[in-house]
């Protein structure tokens, strides 16, 4: 029998196998679709109201269309300018026309505010130019317009403002992200990088990380003994302790912060006690300080650190400790060599959770901290609702999320592998 015959012999069987496996595959695909069906409404909901808004933030952080939209011809004309001195007189004419149009459309101030982000006194420079233009028709002679503008504000005779306008012939830029990263972004009229009054974002990130770290360390130091005692207490005692540690999940964050404000304020109970006992001459203001912020956050986060520790500690068999003791280890040595190492995944999970949550804190520092205790979240809120600078708010959000991911994802992966 040749190989050819064999292959012919088994062909029908194999093709049937293939058919069957095709049917199985089809069934599996159908099964997967059927399995996914109940989850579809939530998935759609999350796609629409979680994924799309996050993408919107990403888009807002690089979307920067104000200048290109208001001054399309000027920015286009500036593309051929070499960036030294000032552009040709014709560009002044184009700009004057577009400034006039913006003034009539009511977008001049918004444009000015946008330029101001990047140019010292930018709003004034634009308004001065607009005001210097004659009420009636613009002069046909571009040279005359240039003289009017330079006369109104000397900045128009320098390269700074032109260099900024030149950059924005596209509706996208990395400006807000560079700003949020603390890179030098502000120019002066001469086009030189200026310190400019502004926000020191790197310091704010550092502060956010340091406060979060302090809270994480405190919750681990306080939480480990608490989790240990709860894990090893049986019956009613354990239940009561667990109830106390779960309390924060049930009392709103605001209520707890409120109670701290009431107790710690200058005319509050703590000051009353301390002065009453003669420990303090005059009441102290504990509130609106860094320690108050860290204390409040620690109090709020303690249970988040404790719960993962607790669930890991409960799986550590007591027999192992008894075994270690029977082999001659002292109680402390048994704890340090048997119990503690096995509790590490819980400690890591709990502290990671608390750290990530702390990075996004906003309400608590705002209510019990001083202006120099505000974390990134407060600035996102401030730029959204007070300064109406959504581009910067979005860029700060991107930096916050990316930073949190970079700081924690490698650790999170390791924690997952251990768990």
């Amino acid at each position, binding site marked *: 029998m040749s190989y050819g015959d064999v292959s012919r012999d088994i062909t029908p069987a194999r093709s049937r196998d293939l058919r069957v496996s095709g049917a199985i595959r089809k069934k*599996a695909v159908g099964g*997967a679709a059927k*399995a*996914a069906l*109940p*989850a579809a*409404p*939530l*998935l759609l*909901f*999350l796609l629409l*109201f*979680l*994924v799309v*808004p*996050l993408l919107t*933030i990403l888009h*807002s952080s690089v979307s920067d269309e104000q200048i290109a939209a208001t001054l399309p011809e000027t920015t286009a004309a500036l593309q051929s300018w070499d960036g030294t001195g000032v552009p040709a007189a014709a560009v002044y004419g184009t700009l004057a026309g577009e400034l006039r149009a913006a003034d009539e459309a009511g977008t001049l101030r918004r444009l000015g505010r946008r330029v101001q982000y990047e140019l010292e006194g930018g709003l004034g420079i634009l308004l001065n130019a607009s005001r210097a233009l004659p009420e009636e028709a613009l002069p046909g002679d571009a040279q005359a317009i240039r003289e009017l503008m330079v006369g109104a504000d000397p900045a128009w005779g320098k390269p700074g403002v032109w260099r900024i306008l030149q950059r924005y012939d596209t509706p996208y830029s990395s400006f807000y992200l560079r700003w949020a990263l603390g890179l030098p972004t502000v120019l002066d009229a001469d086009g030189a990088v200026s310190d400019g009054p502004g926000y020191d974002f790197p310091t704010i990130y550092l502060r956010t990380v340091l406060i979060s770290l302090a809270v994480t360390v405190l919750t681990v130091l306080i*939480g480990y*003994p*608490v989790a*240990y*005692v709860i894990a*090893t*207490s049986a019956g009613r005692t354990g239940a009561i302790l667990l109830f106390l*540690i779960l309390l*924060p999940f*049930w*009392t*709103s964050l*605001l*209520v*707890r*912060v*409120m109670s701290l404000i*009431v*107790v710690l*304020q200058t*005319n509050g*109970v703590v000051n*009353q006690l301390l002065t009453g006992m003669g420990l303090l001459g005059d009441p102290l203001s504990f509130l609106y300080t860094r320690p108050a912020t860290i204390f409040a956050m620690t*109090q709020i986060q303690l249970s988040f650190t404790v719960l993962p520790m607790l669930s890991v500690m409960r799986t550590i068999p*007591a027999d192992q*400790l*008894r075994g270690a003791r029977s082999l001659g280890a002292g109680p402390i040595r048994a704890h340090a060599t048997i119990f503690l190492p096995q509790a590490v995944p819980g400690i890591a999970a709990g502290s990671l959770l608390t750290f*990530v949550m702390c*990075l*996004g804190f*906003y*309400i608590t520092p705002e*209510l019990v901290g001083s202006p120099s205790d505000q974390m990134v*979240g407060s600035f*996102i*809120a401030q730029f959204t*609702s007070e300064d109406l600078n*959504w581009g910067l708010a979005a860029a700060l*959000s991107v930096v*916050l*999320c990316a930073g*949190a991911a970079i700081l924690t994802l490698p650790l999170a992966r390791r924690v997952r592998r251990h768990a």
Partner: protein
Amino acid sequence: MRHYHDLPLWVRLPLYAFVALALAMMVLPLAAALPISLNVDPWFVYPFREFSLRWFEALLSPRWTGAIVNSVLIAVATTLLATGLGTLAAIGLANPRFPFRNLVMVLGLAPLIVPVVVLALGLYIFFGQLSLNYTFIGVVIAHTLLASPFVVITVTATLTRFDFTLMRAAASLGAGRVFAFRTVMLPVIAPGVGAGAILAFAASFDEVVMMLFISGPQQQTVPKLMYLGMRENINPTIIAAAVVTIAFTSVLMAATYRLNRGK
């Protein structure tokens, strides 16, 4: 079990003292602050000249009653939406054939991990295009986003104990999918659904960051009024509002406890 008794006394005593202190730190500020709502004077120290319910009476003003009603309405709508979406999703995710199950699970829990202020900003910008800012629907959507993970978690937990062959048994006896869900699966997972619903309600009832971003000046809730009051000069009315909130959540907590014990 009680291997801590192994530790020598000189370790155990400080350990207990430390744990007692830590737990006191959790409870004492509340215990000291809440009774001040009964002080007749607007002062924050003990003892009181006289007890009074005047700060609770202040909660009967239209401003506060409006906020209480609004909070409850938002929380009820959020609970219904989040419980429906979350329960269905958990049932889907319990199926091992679910495509990209881990990824979807991460997506489902993401609202708990992404900072609320970032979610709020994203929704605020996105809602601006949909004209959903300052609307009841917008707030309910935002709260549902935050509340749905709780339902997914609690229902998923009860489903791990659910025997899916029961559903096949029901089908073999002629039950349709919906009928089988209602009569076989739902009674078994009800404690998880109930616990998830209560957590969703509490999450919405306490929520303030989303409110600050996407609710209008006309839309007040209890947490929002408390927050605004705390930013200015704190007033005993806010403590009274906190007492009411705590009483409310305590009832919810007792309900969850009973649900969990009943299973």
